[in-house]
């Protein structure tokens, strides 16, 4: 299969760089598959899974809020955070989920804090799902 250069960068460093056969990202309007020689494309990414295909096999990672930009030389994904499914610390994700749920059940929460807690819950759930629990 034809490959293309994919780069995933987060504030914690370069997460992934290499020749890939395909990548599936969760944009704000739905999943989008990108193959080699894709047209120039840009979209915002929500919290969700990202699947990277190499040697005919998909590897899944949990991604939270980012940008995807495709142009001729490479496909670039910038994300707030990104973790491979098999490297996710399930205990930590579970703890984050519980903490976020506890916070959400607190009725005295302001709108802004509520949004943050919701975002955290979403991220924790996404990580757990990606890890396969």
């Amino acid at each position, binding site marked *: 299969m034809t490959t293309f250069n994919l780069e995933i960068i987060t*504030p914690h460093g370069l997460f992934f760089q290499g020749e890939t056969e395909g990548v599936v990202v969760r944009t704000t309007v739905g999943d989008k598959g990108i193959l080699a020689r894709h*047209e*120039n*494309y840009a979209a915002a990414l929500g919290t969700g899974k990202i699947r990277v295909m190499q040697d005919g096999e998909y590897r899944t990672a949990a991604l939270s809020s980012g940008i995807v930009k495709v*142009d*001729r030389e490479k496909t670039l994904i*910038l994300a707030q955070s990104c973790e491979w499914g098999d490297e996710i610390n399930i205990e930590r994700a579970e703890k984050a989920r519980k903490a976020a749920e506890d916070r959400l059940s607190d009725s005295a929460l302001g709108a802004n804090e509520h949004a943050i807690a919701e975002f955290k819950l979403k991220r924790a759930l996404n990580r757990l799902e990606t890890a396969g629990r």
Partner: protein
Amino acid sequence: MAKGNMKSIKRRIKVVGSTLQITKAMEMVASSKLRRAKAQTERMRPYFHALDKLLSGIATEKKDFATIFTTKRKTVKNRLFIVIAGDRGLAGGYNSNILKLVAAHKNNAPDTGTKIIAVGKTTVDYFKKNKYDISAEFPHFCDDIKASRCADIAQIAINQFRSGEVDEVWIFYTAFISALQQQTTAVQLLPFVVSETENSDESAQGFTSYDPSPEAVFDRIIPKMLMSMISCACVEAYASEQSARRNAMESASDNAEEMIESLSLQYNRLRQEKITNEINEIVGGANAIS
């Protein structure tokens, strides 16, 4: 006379010695913090560069739309300055240099109003004292940089920009170049300006399709990119602060050591003199008796 002088010199040696202990301790604390901050900036840097490149790529591309975020406004009435400096002093010129830069920018355009988002305690104090128009203040921000708080700053900036309250948004911070070199920096965040070095004609060719629409993508991306820029700036500023403090404390310690050395020399000289005098007196007395 000599006796009193000796006593005061001894006291000064002691005082300088205890100052030395403090500066040494601060130097050590700053260098350990610096090590951590430096690692963080190095991790963050590729993201920062990629983001900058991506945005200027988008901005230079041919497009059939204009957003308020990329359109330069005809008249600039008010500007919003996000200023990042430290919470504490004793960091050489770190805090005053960045504030000087802000003042210089303000004086460049005396007719435009200035609003301030102050990050760091020294900044808050300074702008309050000088009666600036402060939109928001975030003391004690940089020692624990949280994405959600950076998002708060970004949101304030976007709201003000969108409502027309301000026409430009700038960020002021100290870029961390190396442990010995830091550069005060002013960057315009909104509306976007394309960085000169990144005039990529290669990727500017062709047309990018935005999903679902350019406006929707921009609406999602802008807050995120502002947030990232702010957190990157904070991380850099924090590293700069620590290295500035370390350097300041290092030279303070050196000065203290030098001072102790010269005071000790002075003290020993006086002591020697005193002993010589005493011997002279005894010998003189003995001679007188015999």
